[in-house]
């Protein structure tokens, strides 16, 4: 395993690793460090500076009040992103108590900060912050900013409460057996979901911020001691290089992070299920979570990952392995079935059993187009129906399926536009494409089948084989964070093969795959195979 940029990494990653890193050119925060970057003891000055920075921003609330009824103070927070109950009951109520000042120095001076901190305000976290840019960012993250006359810094209180979707069933990756929760759009909630699966201090969560304007929070998760340390370093380096206005979903990030951007095949897995991500972490992979996206990115990823479902690991190994093989077959069918049909019916009629050929020929008698046009027509119709099914408002979806079934299945055949065999081929291809558990991989196979159809229609089986060979060479050339895409077949690894086309029972998967893990320890201790107790010797 090698990482292309591992040498440069140490030099550059310092730029990213600080969690409050600010991108140059940001609109609100200037990079130069002068007096205006620090808070002054003058409250009105501070407030007017912040008002200038935020400009007209209706969602930012400036609440001015008197600390204990005597000292002027200000509370700045983002309405809607903060928990108003915390603001009202924990902060304002306590700070307005008249006796708050008996313990504090009402005069000027730095001692005020320490005394306020000692007050044990009923919020989870409160820290001093002397720098204006940091404080601005904190407000935008949903924290409340407390400024007091005479205090040369601000206090940042944790009050963030972004409204978001509740944890629900994952929509894209469904299983029958296994956890039924999926990630949501809230970063902290997603991290919690993972932490719930891996309760170990070794699970490291590094946060960083990306996007000049969006300031999207990212989290880099890995298990220290399990992951090859070069891997998180490489991830930090690749993330650090990105300069973009905004990151709205992990899918945008994916394109910056992958090794080869010009390929149909994803080299990074987007995962909606916390258990799948946890499994990846336990194999030594790293996960990148993006605030606002319910899909975590897991790297490194190899081809076999896309033909596995998390359920494979929870179900009995024999049916699970059979299902996996079924998915491999389906993958090949999606790629080649229409191409094979065209190739065989237009080039290799001798390959078809006579009886079948008769019936195929009988069906084709009334069809006016060549097989190629026929298959392209049907495949496009199918893709259109599928796309319509996704885009249409849910109540209209049913209408599409009825029209689709009638148009494709019955009317087109009756009208003599296509042959019934072609309908079978196209629908079989469509259904097999749904068997592939990861949508972005099945869309790759679906796209690749069109060049295959053209190859099959121009060169026959030779063309199909040519296409498959080209595809194989291409797949062998792909890397995901330096890991060959065809692992464990590409570089043959017997340990990895135990969990690739078939899944061995858990007690036999003693070693972690050699993707990213430092294989110094066992995943399952050897000799865990269940067996009946040894017979007792009779006295």
């Amino acid at each position, binding site marked *: 395993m090698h990482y292309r940029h591992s040498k440069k990494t140490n030099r550059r990653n310092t730029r990213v690793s600080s969690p409050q890193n600010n991108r140059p050119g940001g609109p609100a925060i200037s990079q130069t460090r002068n007096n205006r970057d620090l808070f002054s003891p003058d409250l009105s000055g501070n407030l007017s500076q912040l008002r200038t920075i935020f400009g007209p921003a209706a969602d930012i609330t400036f609440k001015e009040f008197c600390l204990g009824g005597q000292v002027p103070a200000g509370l700045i927070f983002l309405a809607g992103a903060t928990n108003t109950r915390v603001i009202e009951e924990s902060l304002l109520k306590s700070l307005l108590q008249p006796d708050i000042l008996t313990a504090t120095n009402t005069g000027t001076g730095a001692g005020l900060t320490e005394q306020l901190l000692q007050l044990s305000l009923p919020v989870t976290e409160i820290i001093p912050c002397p720098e204006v840019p940091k404080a601005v960012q904190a407000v935008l993250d949903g924290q409340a900013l407390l400024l007091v006359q005479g205090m040369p810094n601000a206090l940042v209180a944790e009050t963030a409460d972004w409204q978001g979707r509740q944890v629900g069933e994952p929509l894209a990756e469904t299983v029958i057996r296994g956890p039924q929760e999926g990630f949501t759009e809230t970063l902290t909630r997603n991290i919690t979901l993972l932490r719930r699966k891996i309760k170990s201090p070794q699970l490291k969560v590094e946060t960083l911020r990306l996007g000049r304007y969006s300031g999207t929070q990212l989290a880099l998760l890995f298990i220290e001691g399990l992951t090859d340390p070069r891997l998180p370093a490489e991830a930090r380096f690749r993330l650090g290089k990105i300069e973009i206005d905004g990151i709205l979903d992990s899918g945008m990030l994916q394109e910056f992070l992958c090794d080869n951007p010009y390929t149909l095949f994803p080299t990074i897995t987007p995962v909606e299920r916390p258990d799948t991500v946890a499994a990846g972490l336990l194999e030594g992979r790293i996960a990148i979570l993006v605030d606002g996206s319910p899909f975590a990115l897991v790297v490194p990823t190899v081809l076999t990952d896309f033909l596995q479902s998390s359920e494979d690991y929870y179900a009995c190994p024999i049916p699970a392995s059979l299902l996996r093989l079924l998915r491999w077959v389906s993958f090949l069918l999606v790629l080649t079935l229409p191409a094979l049909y065209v190739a065989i*019916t*237009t*080039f290799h*009629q*001798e390959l078809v059993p*006579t*009886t079948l*050929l*008769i*019936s*195929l*020929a*009988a*069906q*084709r*008698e009334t*069809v006016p187009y*060549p*097989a190629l046009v026929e298959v392209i027509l049907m495949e496009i119709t199918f893709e259109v129906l599928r796309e319509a099914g996704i885009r249409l408002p849910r109540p209209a979806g049913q209408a599409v399926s009825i029209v689709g079934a009638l148009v494709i299945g019955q009317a087109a055949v009756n009208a003599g536009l296509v042959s*019934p065999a072609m309908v079978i081929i196209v629908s079989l291809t469509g259904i097999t494409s749904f068997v592939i558990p990861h949508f972005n991989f099945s869309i790759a196979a679906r796209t690749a089948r069109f060049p295959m159809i*053209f*190859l099959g*229609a*121009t*060169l*026959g089986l030779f*063309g199909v084989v*040519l296409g498959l060979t*080209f595809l194989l060479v291409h797949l062998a050339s792909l890397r995901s964070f330096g890991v060959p895409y065809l692992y464990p077949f590409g570089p043959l690894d017997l340990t990895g093969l135990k969990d690739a086309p078939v899944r061995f029972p858990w007690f036999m998967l003693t070693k972690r795959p050699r993707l990213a893990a430092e294989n110094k320890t066992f995943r399952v201790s050897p000799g865990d195979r269940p067996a009946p107790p040894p017979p007792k010797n009779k006295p």
Partner: protein
Amino acid sequence: MGRGLRFILGLCLLITPVLTGCWDRMELNEISIITSVALDKTDDELLLSVTVLQPRNLHRGGDQSMSGGTSSPVEQFQSRGKTIFDAFKELNYQLPRQPYWGQVHAVVFNTAITGEEFFQTLDFFARYPEARRTTDLFLTAEKAAGIIWSPRQIETLKTKELHGMANQQHFWNRGAKVTLQDLFHFEPPMAEVYLPRVYLVEHAAGTVAGTSPTTPKKIATLSGLGVLKQGQFVGWLTETETFGVLWLLNKVRHGPITVDTGQGPAALRLLYARTKIRVVDGPNGPTMLVKIRGIMDLVEAQGAFGQATTKDVARLQELAGETVRQTITQGLGKVQSYQTDILGFGREIYRYDPTLWAALAPNWPQVFSTLPVDIQVDLELRRTGLISRTITPENPETKP
């Protein structure tokens, strides 16, 4: 390799298929699928008859039109020419679509075909990429076209019926199934070969598909073999003779043996049989030693078989062996009278002693016709079925 160069190479690879065109492409509805071929001789010319699939009449399997009776699943075409290739060319002009030879499953030769024409046809089918080598070959004394155009019975196509019958005959060792591929395995290839015989018989009225129940029709049936020497017809072998010849060819596996016990007939079925041929030095030159081993099953016994004692079993074994020996002698005698070594004895002698073969070769047909053959049969009766006594009117107390 630079990025630009790689791009150009990739582009070349991608546009290659487009530039070369689709040279072998044939849509299914643009070809005439030929299913069987027949070769006859008329007035010094070759007559090539084919059946071409008419898919419209076979539309969608269980459609009404199929059982309608009026429409045939195949169309008949005929062409003639001085040579076989003239006839093939002529056929091309007649057909509305490109003929497709990849689904020909039966080729029927008339016995009048000369050796030259026979080999021309084989050459065409072996050389042409479309044609398949598993095509069944047949020989007939009647009009070959009449065979492939005779009405079908069970199968949708006559060619499939011929194929199926050849398989059945092969299984029961009444005839043989010979494909184009098989001809290459004769030694020397194709010089002295046999083909299954096909002929027309009157069929009981009413069972021929597509005809009115009252008119009796002639249908094709298979039995026995025809012997060809250098592609030229020599003579027929009857069913019994065929069985004997197949024993010598080590092709008997399941054939039935009927013996006359003197007190009633008994039928035996072979479960396993192997023939080994060796050459031994006899008093008058080389002698072929034929050793046969086999295992049988009792299918039917009448009369004296009584109880299945070891004595009865031994007697049946002996009788069966003797019957087989006689059958073989009969078949051998016929083949020897044709002076055609379809049995591969020449090859055995060559293997035994090449110098001896060199001496015999110039005169081989005559030597073959008088070659002494020693037949040793060892058949074993393993099972007598589910009952041990014969059911007869004289033996009513028999409890099966």
